[in-house]
């Protein structure tokens, strides 16, 4: 008896301890949702193409910037601005995948913190002694800083061209553009070199598995960047008073809606499993939810509820002025309406969807019982 039990205990304790490393190799699973297929689709058809397009646009911007600084003219400024807009738009499709290297280096913080800090930009320019890697410089770089330099640094087009041509300003602008490009290629290279397979292989269901992380990032993007930063904060939802200074693309004064729409479309496409180029459909969260609804015989149409709420939000957003600054200042109620509709989907996403997928919001590495 004593020996029997001792042996059993020994065996067990060993098994329990080994669990952390999962020594037993996976075998084929039937009839269940294929997470690794979904992860492959995400990586190969959505995330990597988005990063590639974005990196491409950034290198384009780098080119046009070189052209401009070689020959500062209003028309070259216009080309630079166009390429800036292209890249800024592409960024919106990348931003929701802050995972892997992007998470590690904090891509978003270096790319799109707004409102940008004008004093800091000017002091950086005049000091010529700045380190863009420092968190204190988050608000002095990225697209918002370029927005200021390209549109807001002077009142007139000529003024902008001449100021930008100044040695110190030019240096600063170029360093901003190059930094954007360099950190993006770092992320992209990491994806293509090693992270893609790591990402797809991590197809488990723990809090640190790829699906859980991407879904959390996706939710975070929706809640913080789409709902709050682009709409809620300018509309004054979190301060009590509206503030057009918080609009994305504040200085260019016309692209805020475009940027928002692209970001929202990226969100919806990702949820629905539409490839970056829009040509293919793949395994998606929507399918995953639909299958869970099926298996559990639930009468809750998880994905349908989310999609129809987004449609409502989309119609509300369609009614907005192309410049949110004007919208906020002249008829903030429409902004508030869009916020409210986006907000309603939060409950469907953070509560119903997360429970159905059994993914924890912001995985906490602690014990349960």
């Amino acid at each position: 008896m004593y020996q029997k039990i001792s042996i059993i205990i020994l065996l067990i304790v060993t098994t329990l301890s080994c669990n952390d490393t999962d020594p037993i190799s996976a075998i084929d699973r039937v009839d269940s949702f294929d997470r690794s297929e979904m992860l492959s689709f995400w990586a190969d058809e959505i995330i990597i193409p988005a990063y590639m397009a974005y990196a491409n646009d950034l290198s384009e911007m780098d080119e046009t910037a070189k052209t401009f600084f070689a020959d500062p003219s209003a028309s070259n400024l216009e080309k630079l601005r166009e390429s800036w807009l292209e890249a800024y738009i592409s960024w919106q499709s990348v931003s929701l995948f802050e995972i892997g290297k992007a998470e590690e280096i904090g891509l978003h913080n270096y790319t799109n913190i707004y409102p940008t800090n004008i004093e800091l930009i000017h002091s950086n320019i005049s000091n010529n002694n700045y380190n863009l890697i420092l968190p204190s410089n988050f608000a002095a770089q990225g697209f918002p800083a370029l927005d200021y330099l390209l549109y807001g640094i002077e009142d007139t087009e000529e003024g902008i061209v001449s100021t930008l041509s100044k040695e110190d300003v030019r240096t600063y602008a170029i360093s901003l553009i190059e930094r954007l490009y360099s950190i993006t290629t770092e992320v992209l290279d990491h994806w293509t070199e090693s992270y893609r397979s790591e990402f797809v292989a991590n197809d488990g269901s723990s809090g640190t598995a790829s699906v859980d992380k991407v879904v959390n990032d996706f939710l975070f993007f929706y809640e913080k960047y789409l709902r709050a930063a682009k709409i809620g904060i300018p509309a004054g939802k979190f301060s009590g008073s509206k503030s057009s200074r918080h609009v994305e693309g504040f200085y260019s004064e016309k692209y805020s809606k475009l940027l928002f729409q692209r970001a929202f479309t990226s969100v919806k496409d990702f949820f629905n499993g539409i490839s970056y180029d829009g040509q293919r459909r793949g395994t998606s969260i929507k399918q995953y939810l639909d299958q869970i609804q099926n298996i559990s015989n639930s009468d809750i149409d998880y994905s349908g509820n989310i999609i129809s709420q987004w449609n409502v939000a989309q119609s509300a957003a369609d009614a907005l002025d192309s410049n949110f600054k004007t919208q906020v200042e002249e008829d903030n109620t429409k902004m508030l309406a869009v916020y409210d509709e986006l907000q309603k989907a939060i409950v469907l996403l953070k509560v119903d969807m997360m429970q159905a997928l059994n993914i924890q919001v912001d995985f906490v590495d602690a014990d349960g019982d």
Partner: protein
Amino acid sequence: MKHYWPSYINKTTKAAPLAAFRFLFGLLMLISLIRFWYYGWIEKLYILPTFHFHYYGFDWVTVPGPWTYLLFFVCGLSSFSFAIGYKYRLSIIIFFLSFTYIELMDKTTYLNHYYLVSLLSFILIWIPAHAHFSVDAYKHKGLANEYIPRWSLDALRLMIAIVYIYAGLAKLNSDWMIDALPLSIWLRAKVDLPIIGSLMDEQWLHYLFSWGGAIYDLFIVFFLICSRTRIYAFATMLFFHIMTRLLFPIGMFPYIMIAASLLFFSASFHTRFLSGLSKILLIPYDVFCNGLTYRRHINFDRYAPYILIPFFLVQILFPLRCHLYPGNLFWTEQGYRFSWRVMLMEKTGYANFKVVDSQSGKHFYVQNEDFLTSFQQKQMSTQADFIIEYAHYLGEHFKSQGHQNIQIFVESYASLNGRKSQPYIDPDVDLLTVKNSLAHKKYILPLHE
């Protein structure tokens, strides 16, 4: 009947099972505390958060900043000390106080098995677990005994029985038994597991686990008590805890329960275990096998039974308090904690706080991540007492920022065991006008099934 009590209180039993439990339990606690420290959880759960959620009546328990590390160190030291039986009474009292203090610092981290550790260590204070196989007994020969009063071993067994039986009774609810919830939600997400993963979508498995779990909890203690079934009960217990450990992140819980189950094993089993252990550790085990019985040494011993009887009465009645509140227990969670309700529900929530100036009517929303860790946010959004405490904290915060005439409302939604999300707290109640208390929280909206 008349003479049963005196005869029972004088019964004796071998000291080996109790000593073995003391030893194993102490070591497990030491490992737990080291693991907690090693994973950086002291920092993450206690030091970093600017705000902590308090248990009702324990607002005075605060996190002592960096001294928290010292607290953990003392706690770990005392656990090792009582494991080896060195200055046992002092060590176990220090362990009980420091461990309980740690648990009371933030109810975000509440776990039933932490509560169990506090209770077991409280019981250990009152019983002579150091009378055998201990440094104390080795050094002071007068303390070494082969036998102890039987009630001191039975007290620990009773505690374990209460835990299992209440855990089993708590499973007898419609979600668990009829709908196999929340297990079906959890298991469905485990299709990635090796070998058994492919079964995890199967409904029969969800029911098997649900019903098996309920039957296991309800009856395991009886099968452990009965010597003929004990070995099968132990095997079942191991299987059960392996499964839960494989499926869910439950930390040290299975080890504690396995150690506790050894309390039900025969004295001869434990004697062999301790004598074997002594050989390995080069301790002369024979000195403890002197045929003597532990007798009262200090006043502790005299009063122990009279402390433990009310203690167990409270233990039996306390988990029933949930019946004093109306509404669905899982939804309101009134009387949910400290009642051995383990893994009974999957609840997801979302709480969006609105700060209103009652005079101007202007309002803004709070970004919870400015104040709470994500773990705290998660716990806060599904539990009404957290929401109230947090709202009061927000009230203080914004008042100190110069806001006046503040009202705080919450737009909260929660989803229970796969039901569609529904409003949780009445959004029209100014949370600053209500206080946490033991009374029924009328501002929790009813659950629609």
